């Protein structure tokens, strides 16, 4: 597969209307290879024939259940599974994820959310190793480019290197770019969970990071402080 839209997707749901709708949504979003099955027997047959690269699975099926079906698939394939079910109990969700499912979405769902989750799974499973440094691990902040894999910042005046903690902070902020990242989440990323008492140290690292990525660190435009909550890396 060269592109995620080429992924072979198997949809399993007992409701044919849902199957039609899902197929319609995925087709409109550009996915090319979609198979649908309304029961376990059909699903097994299609699985054998098409070797899907992603399975969207309902739990309650007329001749079995999605959990058993997933176990069967996992015996012969590592294809990611996303459960899409009307069962919204925590127990079902935990059980499905505990079996090794990659995600669990409850009905009713927003089609956009389904597409985003599905794309994330496909990227994570099939494309993470193909990413080049320039495509996936660089971060452009105005006149500066941060190479996250190497921990280097290219500036008009030359290269600057990031410390391990600065790099961890920047990676966390970049993962949530455009969103507020709390002090706690940043501290967890750098010092691990159950931190306490690192607020001042965090501020020192943020100040040093600003000195490297901002034109004018005293008036930052990329790494902003959100009072009482945390920091935000502004989208480019």
């Amino acid at each position, binding site marked *: 597969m060269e592109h995620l839209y080429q992924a072979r997707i198997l949809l399993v749901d007992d*409701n044919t*209307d*849902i199957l039609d*709708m*899902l197929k*319609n*949504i995925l087709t*409109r979003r550009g996915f090319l290879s979609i198979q649908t099955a309304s029961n376990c027997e059909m699903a097994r047959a299609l699985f054998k024939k098409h070797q899907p690269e992603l399975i969207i699975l309902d739990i309650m099926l007329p001749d079995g259940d999605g959990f058993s079906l997933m176990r069967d698939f996992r015996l012969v394939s590592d294809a990611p599974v996303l459960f899409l079910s*009307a*069962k*919204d109990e*925590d127990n079902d969700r935990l059980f499905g994820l505990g079996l090794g499912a990659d995600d669990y979405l*409850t*009905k*009713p*769902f*927003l*089609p*956009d959310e389904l597409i985003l989750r599905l794309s994330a799974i496909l990227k994570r499973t099939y494309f993470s190793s193909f990413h080049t440094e320039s495509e996936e691990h660089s971060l452009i902040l105005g006149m500066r480019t941060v190479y996250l894999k190497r921990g280097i910042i290219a500036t008009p005046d030359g290269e600057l290197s990031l410390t391990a903690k600065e790099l961890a902070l920047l990676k966390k902020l970049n993962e*949530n770019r455009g*969103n*507020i*990242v*709390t*002090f*706690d*989440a940043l501290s967890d990323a750098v010092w691990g969970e159950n931190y*306490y008492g690192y*607020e001042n140290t965090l501020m020192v690292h943020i100040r040093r990071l600003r000195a490297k990525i901002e034109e004018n660190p005293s008036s930052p435009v990329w790494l902003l402080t*959100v009072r*009482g*909550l*945390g920091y935000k890396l502004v989208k480019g």
Partner: protein
Amino acid sequence: MKSLSKIIARYLFTAVLILLMTLFFNIFLYPVTAFYVVQPSGNTNYNSAKGLSEELREDNGVISITEQGKKQIEEQLAFSMLLDDNGTVIWSYHLPEDITKRHYTASEIAVFSKWYLNDYPIICQVTDYGLLVTGAPKGSLFRYNIIDSVERIKRMFYMIPAMLILNLILVLLLVIVWSVRFYRSLRTIALGLESLSKEEPICLPEKGMTELLARQLNQTSKILTKQREHLAKRDDARTTWISSVSHDIRTPLSLIMGYAASLKSDSALSKEQRRTAELMEHQSLQIKHLIEDLNLTSKLEYDMQPLRRMAFQPARLLRTLVSDCYNQGLLDTHVLELCISKEIEPVYLDGDTSLLTRAFYNLIQNSVRHNPSGCQIQIDASLEKGFIRFQYADSGCGIPSNVIASLTGTLSDHEKAPHIMGLRIVSQIFKAHNWKMEFLDRNTILIHAKIISSVS
């Protein structure tokens, strides 16, 4: 069981009090009563006979009796006679027909002087004229001779208080024995009542002095068990029904949301048609949230929502929550200020973080939804004597008073309960965690949560 011990102690105390009062009555009141009531009327014949010797007269060797003496004999006594030293009757008055003898031997005199003569109680008196023998009417006086050793009589004086003390001990022992028996019988009843108050079924032994009480309690227990089962069945049916309906509605709602989303982005449709599709999607989303809320509130109401309790830092929870609200764009037109005091940072609480996040999120969402033109929201967290005090306030229109009354259970009978979901869930979640929620005014809510530990 404390109340039972109290009852038994009171029973014992009352018994001892009755005993002492009876003793007091006997010691002080009985002699008084005996002296004033029994003495005057008890031995009139005897006194009359004793005084008769004063009425005898001798005139030239002839014995006679005064008119007063005669009157006494006629009215109160049976007869009177005077014996000389030889036992010969030298004077008599009113002798009955069954006493015909005119001479008595020494042994006969010795016998009747102590007992009776022909069933007449006899009182003998030595006078200057001889032995005055007075007979009282038959059946009027009781005579009894006591002959005993002085030592024995003396011992009798010691025996009386000893017997009294022994009696007291016996009575006390009996009271204690009955108390213990009473306690044992009541203990079963008390244990039964305790179990009933804990909603546990009981089956008490129906015997002894509490048989009737035990039977009635067993019947009550059966009725309560039946009612509980009935209620549980009804609650279960209601929750299952809500759960089933919400489950069944999810698939058609998925279709509506899916197709609405497709139509919304279909360029072949007009702008108006796409706006309608967007509206459909938005309303479907509302239904989705309503179903989730309905499910959750029903489970919380009937304790069917498992709490995944864990220790957590409330400061982290609040920061993550507020950040998420900003990140999701919920607060685009609103301002949310979070003020966490420094001492809260190391503090840990116990609870289900996903439910508690949901509760605070509902509060924020409530402020946003009911103040569409924007408002200032303020969340403060501070320390207060082993508790964390959360204060949630907004500058918006405030919570209607009937909603507050409904949530605090102060809604009057004639007021109709408002349809509320979001705040009810908030209240239920805090209640499930034993957190105290109170409304300071229409815009301010106070929540108190007990601290379990803090990082040193």
